[in-house]
């Protein structure tokens, strides 16, 4: 069985928000749109987004780590948001594990959002239905697109390639390999929601320089220290005294 998902590499995410706006851009005019904005040019603008990038600070100065943290629906394998939905508008597709909302059925009761621990569902305040990341289901199967572009908009946009997309149930997929080899983890595992999306942790590269490496035979200073011998005819003690 297929479970499509995103794997987000916190080791390279620079928090640029490309995934945020490219998602909005693709989806607002697409099948999952529109995504309304309220007070667009007034005080306190607010609108529907399927994906947000947040920033956390870990540790204290000077050992602070700044962590940029993109988050969209994690397409949980045990999605608590689905069974609570009274209308069946929220559902998880059997064929690829994508969790979707059928806007035509949704009554906008918000109950599913209460049942999601991750805060990724957003009620569109204009259309009054629940919306969320669709994994760009309208792109990834669109055969009129070139194969390489049958990926979510945010994945195509991400300048650091921090967003991988694929089937986490296929052990050979890029995403499964990344999870396996680079310590991919799920958010809030304590709830047993089994998010399909995973995150890859930061990794640190260090260079150790040993004292031996600082003194080497080919040190150019050896050459530099060989300064020219003074010319024979330069003054010396020989010229001024005898004893």
């Amino acid at each position, binding site marked *: 069985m297929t479970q499509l998902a995103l794997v987000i590499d916190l080791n*390279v995410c620079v928090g640029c928000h490309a995934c945020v*706006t490219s998602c909005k851009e*693709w989806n607002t005019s697409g099948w999952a749109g529109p995504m*309304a904005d309220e007070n667009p*040019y007034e005080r306190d603008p607010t609108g529907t987004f399927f994906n947000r990038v947040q920033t956390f600070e870990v540790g204290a100065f000077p050992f602070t780590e700044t962590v940029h943290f993109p988050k969209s629906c994690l397409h949980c394998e045990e999605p608590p948001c689905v069974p609570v939905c009274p209308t069946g508008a929220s559902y998880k597709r059997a064929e690829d594990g994508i969790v979707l909302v059928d806007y035509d059925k949704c009554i906008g009761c918000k109950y599913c959002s209460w049942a999601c621990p991750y805060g990724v569902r957003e009620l569109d305040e204009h259309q009054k239905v629940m919306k969320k990341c669709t994994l760009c289901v309208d792109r990834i199967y669109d055969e*009129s697109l070139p194969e390489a572009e049958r990926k979510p908009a945010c994945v195509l946009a991400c300048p650091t*390639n921090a967003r991988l997309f694929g089937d986490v149930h296929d052990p050979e997929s890029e995403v499964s390999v990344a999870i396996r080899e680079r310590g991919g983890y799920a958010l809030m595992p304590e709830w047993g929601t089994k998010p399909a999306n995973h995150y890859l942790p930061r990794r640190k590269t260090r260079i150790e320089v040993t004292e031996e490496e600082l003194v080497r035979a080919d040190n150019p200073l050896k050459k*530099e220290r060989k*300064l020219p011998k003074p010319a024979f005819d330069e003054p010396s003690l020989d010229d001024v005294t005898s004893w």
Partner: protein
Amino acid sequence: MSEPLTESELRRRRGERVEQRNTTCYMCACRCGIRVTVVDGKVRYIQGNPDHPLNKGVICAKGASGIMKQYSPARLTQPLLRKPGAERGAGEFEPISWDEAFRILEERLARIRETDPKKFALFTGRDQMQALTGLFAKQFGTPNYAAHGGVCSVNMAAGMIYTIGGSFWEFGGPDLDRAKLFVMIGTAEDHHSNPLKIAISKFKRRGGRFVSINPVRTGYSAIADEWVPIRPGTDGALLLAITHEIIRRGLYDRDFLVRYTNAPQLVNVDPESPEYGLLVRTRDPVPEGCFDPQNQLWWDRHTDRPVRTHTEGADPYLLGSFTLEDGTPVKPAFQLLVDRLKDYTPEWASRITGIPAETIRRLAHEMGVTARDHRIELPIPWTDAWGREHESVTGNPVAFHAMRGLAAHSNGFHTIRALSILMTVLGTIDRPGGFRHKAPFPRPIPPCAKPPKGPEDVRPGQPLNGMPLGWPAGPDDLFVDERGEPVRIDKGFSWEYPLSVHGLMHNVITNAWRGDPYRIDTLMIFMANMAWNSTMNTVEIRRMLNDKDENGEYKIPFLVVCDAFQSEMVAFADLVLPDTTYLERHDVMSLLDRPISEFDGPVDSVRVPVVPPLGECKPFQEVLIELGSRLKLPAFVNPDGSRKYRDYPDFIVNYETEPGSGIGFLAGWRGKGGEKHLRGEPNPRQWEMYEKNGCVFHYELPRSYQYFRNWNQGYLEWAQRHRLTRYAEPIMIQIYSEVLQKFRLAAEGKWPGRQPPQRLRERIRTYFDPLPFYHEPLEAQVTDTQRYPLNAVTQRPMAMYHSWDSQNAWLRQIHTYNYLYMSPQLGERLGVEDGGWVWVESPWGKVRCRCRFSEAVEPNTVWTWNAIGKQPGAWNLAPDANEGRDGFLLNHLISEELPGGAAGARVSNSDPITGQAGWYDVRVRIYPARADEPGRTWPEFEPARPVPGEPERPRRWLVFSARGKARA
């Protein structure tokens, strides 16, 4: 809906017509290739062009929000004339026709040109068409032209170009495909936004080590393996100490220094000599030209005699002190560098920078050992400029990148020289894994273009004699009158800022207002928000724009603003010219300007319109072509005075730098049928061919020409044949800068040519040091730093471009207003609360703003995002929008002038060498706002009023879909 539909199925069912076109993004100056999908005439989706060499398909937050720029309610749509009797700044306009606008401009500009062309000043901001605007200014005959470089990063350009013949910024960059250690200094977002992100992430994935030196940890620095917080303005000390340690340990690349730099060249060290401090040269006659004749001397260790550099078999001393036959004492330049570095120890630097000496030493060792022990060797044979054949291309995998954190300080020039020298000492210039040039760089040191030499070069009715902007090689290239006083309105190329190679845009308004050095008549501003964020001391500058003389005349009599949006600047215009957006016009990113070249060869690109212009918007390019034709500027008319170019696309195809030169704005598909590259006759189908290729032309150099380009015979000759350069002489790295020494000699009265006015002698003598040295920024020198102990700086937010994007409904949700970030300890000490309102005060002004605590900032520094705060009502935002009420502009705290001490009553708050604006030098103190003060930002401004023709702004809802109406 029920079952999801694919996009194509959805379009099919709705019966919509879908088109895709490639063009070039301009949500910022990075210029990525984009593919725009248009549905029934409406922009639906903007994605990165996967085939584009720059961004390889990715896009950024701004690029993906281009739709909201296109449909912004802040768009200007008609030419506007200030209502008779209305005050400037009141924003009262009446729409006029383009005919009328052109008539006004033609009449006024023709009069100025016939009398005194310098009374017309053209200053442009974050544009990318300096080749055309510069050409227009030169043809008009005014020297008063510059783009944003002086407010931006001219130190970065000048500091490096005067040292290695190329620079970061748009001219070169780190080779992260091969580097092992990457040190990024003072960079938040950079011009090369997407490519740098792509490169850094690949580098990290390969396991490279990434160190960021920055007082603040955001963005790129967030993913650094090590963050080295530094006190602002002190990097010079750090870099000099690192270089000290590297040399002390013998970790420098000796072979590189010997062969490719002036390190071993002998310098006259006889203080009595008129040539004191200059390189000793053989007396052989050399042809005049803009290149570095290879006639300097080495002291050969085999023969113990001076020999001409690069003499076959010779091996020069790098250290020592020698006497020439005529008794002149000489030293290799490297010895002088070592002498200079003697006291710049890690301990010394630690006290200045706040970085532990141990860290400084460790960084030096990491750099030195990685450079030495991880040498890259590529099996690419090449030949150097002296004819020596090399079996392979080698490189030392330590790469640096730096931007405005170094540049935007008034000591930045020397800091950047210090960085260039560190990179050189490590042997990393135009080599794999290090720094790589991008065409048309490297250039000779300095590049050939020269500013005019004196007032006589500004002639009524004639083009300017010289380039408005150029690269002085010595005191005699300055642009001053017989008293040594400036000719340019911004005092560029004067003794105050001799190497101000990008002008000093930040002083134009103040100088023009004061009439110092003279009054001007018309100031034309294109794409610059000089009533707001590209101005220091914003409150005063706005007053100057409105100020009248005793006759009731505006001190700056006529202000023309060409903008696409209702920026803060627009309200001050007498005449507003509504520009198109980047999706509505033709544009070129030319090799004559700052192209988007790659390490492997020149790249230029174009924009083509994907949607028709809104209202009466007209591309500024067309305005210039029209004006040039009407004013009969020689480049725009035939010998009989008739119009030469139909429009801008026609101009781009047919313009040649000289008749028959075969060099034009675009390098691709030249020649009658598009068969030639770089040089060739005009090709009438050139636009088409660009478009077919994704609007980009990429010329890949043969592999053997891709490295060591300063000294690569093959490359230099290729560049010469394709007229990228006039000479194919090697470009030696100037560890020791003779150019600077020439100015110093002039200050000491030893230069046979021009000499500075008395009041500036000491300033020139101090700052024109041929070797880098550390000095405090000018502002700190005149500020009571006990009273103002903190540094205040800004960062580029990745999801906003300067002041442009508050009109963008999506982006403004990410940055709606800004906080001042400070360390929690500082906040506690000051008694302010996280999220509370504080006063920030500098010697020059104060603002009230909200603060946020952050552990990711050096404790003596506070920072905020740049240009988020806005004038209420500008950009067609609601008058109570957060940008104007909660957001603030740091610029209010920064002065464009400083008390000048001996150098005069006042000097620009700029680097004394290049005129680079000292944005990041400001010192502040902070205290909590009183409880009874309003929870609003201060200073407060009257709300700007919408201008005629602006689209109605949707109030409650914006429900955008490329299907129905743009707005609900």
